[in-house]
């Protein structure tokens, strides 16, 4: 029994396969560092800006704009990310709007993630006691000034763990960009896999690289949370 398994394992990890895996590793890691991570970083940064603005519009109860934001969140959260990528990349050309793969990915990922993070930010802002805003305007600051100096810093701390969650989940979702020909980590893996016909081993290998990236992010999150907690508020 045990011999059977070990035979199967050693047969699986033939010298040829080990060679392929070792050779493929940098070929996967490189697009991971040059594409997956920048795509995630850029899209998430834009998503955060969208989220803060969308959350503030909702909290400020600005008429019309607020309804537009609700509509945006409703549509984005109610449709699959993959479909959104297809609509923009393969659909918009019908209207004469042709975008390059990478900008398309950034656009779709940031708009998509922005909707989710907007809800996180809104909840975080609403969790700050009303008295903080009242005190701000009573010392003569405007609503916006109080927002920036008092409410948002506190809200970001509350929102930090769920936002980190979103970031990690977005990093993995960037693999969907393979569908619109972005040469990111997963796309490259698909190509290698079809060349060598070693799908199982190579897809597990790329999964492990994603796992590595996410582990780093989780560690960074833990360090940041500790740091935030030490700020004494």
């Amino acid at each position, binding site marked *: 029994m045990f011999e059977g398994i070990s035979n199967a394992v050693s047969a699986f990890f033939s010298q040829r396969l080990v060679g392929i895996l070792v050779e493929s590793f940098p070929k996967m890691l490189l697009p991971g560092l040059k594409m997956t991570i920048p795509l995630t970083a850029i899209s998430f940064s834009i998503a955060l800006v969208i989220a803060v603005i969308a959350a503030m519009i909702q909290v400020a109860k600005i008429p019309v704009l607020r309804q537009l934001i609700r509509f945006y969140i409703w549509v984005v959260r109610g449709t699959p990310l993959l479909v959104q990528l297809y609509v923009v990349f393969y659909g918009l050309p019908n209207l004469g709007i042709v975008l390059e793969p990478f900008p398309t990915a950034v656009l779709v990922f940031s708009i998509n993630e922005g909707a989710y993070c907007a809800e996180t930010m809104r909840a975080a802002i609403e969790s700050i*006691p009303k*008295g*903080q805003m*009242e*005190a*701000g*305007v*009573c*010392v*003569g*600051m*405007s609503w916006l*000034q109080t927002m920036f*100096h*008092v409410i948002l*810093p*506190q809200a970001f*701390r509350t929102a930090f763990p769920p936002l980190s969650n979103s970031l990690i989940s977005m990093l993995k979702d960037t693999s969907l960009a393979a569908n619109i020909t972005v040469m990111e980590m997963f796309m490259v893996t698909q190509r290698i896999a079809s060349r060598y016909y070693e799908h199982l081993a190579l897809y597990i290998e790329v999964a492990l690289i994603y796992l590595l990236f996410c582990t780093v992010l989780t560690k960074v999150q833990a360090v940041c949370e500790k740091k935030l907690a030490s*700020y*004494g*508020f």
Partner: protein
Amino acid sequence: MLTIHQVTKQFDGSQVLKGVDLTVNKGDVIAIIGQSGGGKTTLLRCMNFLETADSGTMEFDGETFDLAKISKKDIERIRRKTAFVFQSYNLFRNKTALQNVMLGLTVARKMPKAQAEQIARSALEKVGLADKADSYPNALSGGQQQRVAIARALATDPEIIYFDEPTSALDPELTGEVLCVMRSLAEEGMTMLVVTHELGFARNVSTKVIFMENGSVVESGPSMEFFTNPKEERTRAFLNTITQHEKE
């Protein structure tokens, strides 16, 4: 200096303020007393536009404003000449004591940092908390937080400070330190409008007392006269229940 006229306010169909008049002169220390739910806090909040009054006018520094239709610009302008001390302190939780006091100067009044810090430090010194400048609110006791809040109010050099039950959230032993600071402000001639349950403060520190009940002013007058010779039956009844309570 400040006069409000016929202020009314309704919450969900119940009339909280039924046409309140009030005049504040420079140097007045006015205590607004009365049972909870009588409209005292709402009046104060309407005067600083934390609530929007349904009707009424305000005359402040020679200008007249319609409280129901006042513009945002005018509100901000008036707020820069007033200060508000809350029952629950409402210190900015992400700022140290010093930063709490400075924010109204550096951000709202665009004052250079060095100058603001100097003012903020002397305001903290005035409330006896110079050594707590770098503490965050959650490291301070309730009494200390309220004193920082008073320093924050003082720093902007307001023409009037509104106090909304400043000691109601405090333990009795902490109440004393806050009242002590307020008393010294009063002695320096600061104009103050204080909603309070501390009849001792109303009697001994304030120059004028206003007794409110069910959204109306029942009686008002100089403190001495108010306590020794109340004119209205309702006032006498209120003072009796309170003094009896204090005796027990």
